[in-house]
């Protein structure tokens, strides 16, 4: 019964979606406030129905109702409750339901908190949001219905893919989806602005917090995914340049560019057309990501199902929204009035530089990800474009960008003094050079490039703090004054500094872990030991232990340094009988920011056990940096100017026509 109710709720949501996709537009055209207001209630109700539908599917999973095909395929009655719940989105149908749930949530949020928006703009935004939602409701109902019943009720489910039975996966997809789908708001605002044919700083003030929120979730979602791959796949790698990873990374790059260009638009009323284009492109990349991951074009853990009709349907959605959005852009964008003028060397110029490099870097990732697909479709040749390609193309572009990062916030708007800024950055240059020298001295010649990378990271870290140091008067003024000044600084200034600092922290982690890590792959018998980076690891023995829906084989290792015990590593292998599959649970020991990483291979006939042992210095900084970036975003989001309900600072009328 509950499954049928869930299905019915989704059909109702589609009905509401279709109303919301049309009525507000008619209302805005005729300036009929009642019709425009209709979008508010339909958006809220849509969210209610989708949430009910999602809850219904969750109840089926929690109760292990195997008469529902989707539950039978992806759940097991002996699975722990947490994984029963996460199985809801651990499959194609359920994850699409999660996607529309978040889409409806964002629509409802605009409806609920968008009271200070111009009425027509709000009506258009909600209508566009509903076009997207309706397309995806149709997709779910026609090709991926999670509520289908089986004729005969099986006694037991087929279990969730064991590599997905992990706490990391419980939060990774929802975070990533909030990021992906959050960019739909920027898209809807862009399309609404194009339909209306006008755009102003108030528009940017509205779009920026939504983009920022989406970006924060995407940042942390990508970091979670990377950490999950790191400890579950047993290779100790944190980024594989796998197409599926790239699918989430491209919207991140474009979204980061959008954040920065929206600043220019908000503050200086410039770069309007570019910002609109970026908003369309960012969400387009999110859609392309969904297509790549969900259509089965790529084979990976994420490609749950390879049903061609689904691929074609998503492709149709993709063409409709990207093609439609870009066509509308080409037609209407020339009508938007040009904004403020600025010299190339200025804050605006630096932000344009940022946009140029981020979008170009995004383009190289796009080429590397889609070229193999295009080549196979055209010539039949199958190639794989791996990490070396991306390191050679993305790497240099991103390094050039990082070098400029500290300049941006220090340059003045309109016309900046580049030499003055360079002088103010002297301390950062000095710290960077010192870091290069110190790294060369310590590393004894393992790598020539890496010390410069470390220097760059330290320079960016120092450079992003300089603005704060100068403006609070740290080291110059008494501490009480510094504290008062620090409290008085706008939160967005703090946010910028913290987020840029976070980028450098991640970069430092990536360089150190990739360059100075050590690796041992060896077969060990009990009581034998192996040494790595100053640690001695001895193999104590193997034991068996049953889990809820698996059997685990646990190996115990003792870690010693100079003879003293530092800790115990217990990697295990889990065998899931329901899928005749084993997973590897690597054992991790965090030492400072570095980690010892041990995962198990196969036992040999002579009783030896193959192991992979890594020491990864500073590896935790990679994910810590992402958390710092997110904090920076949160600080910026809490800026008074952007807070929902805060009084509008500008006395200027928001609806300044730009004919």
């Amino acid at each position, binding site marked *: 019964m509950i499954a049928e109710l869930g299905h019915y709720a989704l059909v109702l949501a589609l009905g509401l979606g279709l109303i919301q996709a049309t009525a507000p537009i008619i209302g805005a055209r005729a300036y009929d406030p009642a019709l425009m207001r209709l979008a508010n209630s339909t958006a809220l109700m849509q969210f209610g129905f989708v949430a009910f539908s999602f809850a219904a599917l969750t109840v089926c999973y929690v109760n292990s109702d195997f008469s529902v*095909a989707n539950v039978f395929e992806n759940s097991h009655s002996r699975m722990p409750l947490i994984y029963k719940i996460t199985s809801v989105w651990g499959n194609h149908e359920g994850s699409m339901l999660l996607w529309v749930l978040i889409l409806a949530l964002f629509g409802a949020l605009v409806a609920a908190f968008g009271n200070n928006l111009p009425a027509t703009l709000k009506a258009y935004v909600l209508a566009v949001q509903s076009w997207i939602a309706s397309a995806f409701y149709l997709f779910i109902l026609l090709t991926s219905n999670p509520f289908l019943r089986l004729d005969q009720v099986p006694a037991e489910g087929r279990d969730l893919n064991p590599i997905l039975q992990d706490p990391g996966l419980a939060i990774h997809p929802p975070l990533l989806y909030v990021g992906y789908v959050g960019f739909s708001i920027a898209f809807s605002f862009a399309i609404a602005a194009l339909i209306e044919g006008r755009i102003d700083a108030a528009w940017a003030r509205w779009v920026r917090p939504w983009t920022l929120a989406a970006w924060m979730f995407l940042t942390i979602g990508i970091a979670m995914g990377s950490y999950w791959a790191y400890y579950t796949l047993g290779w100790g790698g944190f980024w594989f340049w796998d197409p599926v990873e790239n699918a989430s990374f491209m919207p991140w790059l474009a979204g980061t560019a959008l954040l920065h260009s929206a600043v220019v638009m908000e503050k200086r009323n410039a770069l309007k057309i570019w910002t609109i284009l970026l908003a369309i492109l960012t969400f387009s990349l999110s859609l392309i990501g969904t297509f790549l991951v969900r259509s089965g074009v790529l084979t990976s853990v994420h490609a749950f199902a390879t049903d061609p009709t689904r691929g074609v349907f998503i492709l149709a959605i993709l063409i409709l929204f990207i093609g439609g959005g870009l066509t509308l852009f080409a037609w209407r964008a020339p009508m938007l009035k040009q904004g403020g003028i600025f*010299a190339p060397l200025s804050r605006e110029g630096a932000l344009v*530089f940022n946009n*140029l490099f981020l979008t*170009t870097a995004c383009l190289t990732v796009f080429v590397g990800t889609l070229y193999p697909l295009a080549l196979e479709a055209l010539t039949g040749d199958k190639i794989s474009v791996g990490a070396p*390609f991306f390191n050679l193309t993305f790497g240099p*572009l991103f390094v050039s960008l990082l070098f400029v990062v500290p300049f941006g916030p220090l340059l003045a708007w309109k016309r900046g003094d580049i030499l003055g800024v360079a002088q103010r950055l002297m301390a950062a240059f000095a710290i960077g050079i010192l870091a290069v020298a110190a790294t060369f001295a310590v590393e004894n010649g393992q790598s020539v490039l890496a010390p410069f990378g470390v220097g760059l990271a330290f320079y960016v870290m120092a450079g992003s703090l300089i603005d704060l140091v100068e403006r609070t008067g740290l080291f110059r003024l008494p501490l009480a004054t510094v504290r008062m000044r620090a409290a008085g600084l706008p939160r967005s200034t703090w946010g910028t500094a913290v987020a840029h600092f976070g980028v450098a922290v991640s970069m430092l982690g990536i360089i150190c872990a990739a360059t100075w890590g050590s690796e041992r792959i060896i077969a060990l018998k009990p009581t034998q030991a192996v040494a790595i980076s100053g640690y001695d690891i001895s193999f104590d023995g193997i034991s068996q232990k049953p889990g809820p829906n698996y059997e685990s084989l646990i190996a115990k290792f003792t870690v010693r340094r100079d003879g003293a015990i530092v800790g115990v590593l217990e990697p295990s292998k889990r065998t899931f009988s329901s899928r005749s599959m084993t997973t590897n649970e690597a054992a991790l020991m965090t030492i400072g920011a570095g980690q010892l990483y041990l995962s198990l291979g196969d036992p040999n006939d002579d009783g030896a056990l193959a192991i992979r042992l890594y020491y990864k210095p500073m590896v935790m900084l990679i994910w810590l940096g992402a958390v710092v970036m997110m904090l920076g975003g949160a600080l910026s989001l809490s800026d008074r100017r952007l807070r929902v309900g805060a009084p509008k600072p500008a006395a200027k009328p928001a609806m300044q026509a730009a004919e």
Partner: protein
Amino acid sequence: MTRKQRRLVLIGTSLSVLAFAAALVLSAMRDSIVFFTSPTDVVEKQNKPGARLRIGGLVKPGSVARGDNLLVRFAITDGKTDISVHYQGIVPDLFREGQGVVAEGKLESGGAFAADTVLAKHDERYMPREVVDALKQSGRWQEGEAKGSGSTPR
């Protein structure tokens, strides 16, 4: 600076960055791209020794032998042709005889293949697409083979 000059600076910078990126992409394309083939293709097309390849197929039953220092020898087959592969390291959890596998590495002059990466399928329902294609080519593929035994609704 006039609006026109400003625009020229902007366009000039953009074009040079794009040109720089294009140069990077093209040079990387030459050096770091790996072609995928089936065992039959490897033999028929007479790839030069030293070429970097990805070979996909099934692990030939009875061919897996383990040596010292984690050396693994096995043969990849597409039903028609076998290629013998050697690999030093830990094979993935789902590496089994008769199952799909993709090996990446270099072709040696004797016709053997030195793999530096071995990939297996992720779970019992899924087989690498490249393996499916290799099997289809050699006519050993039966539709529905990878789908598993479970009932599908409809």
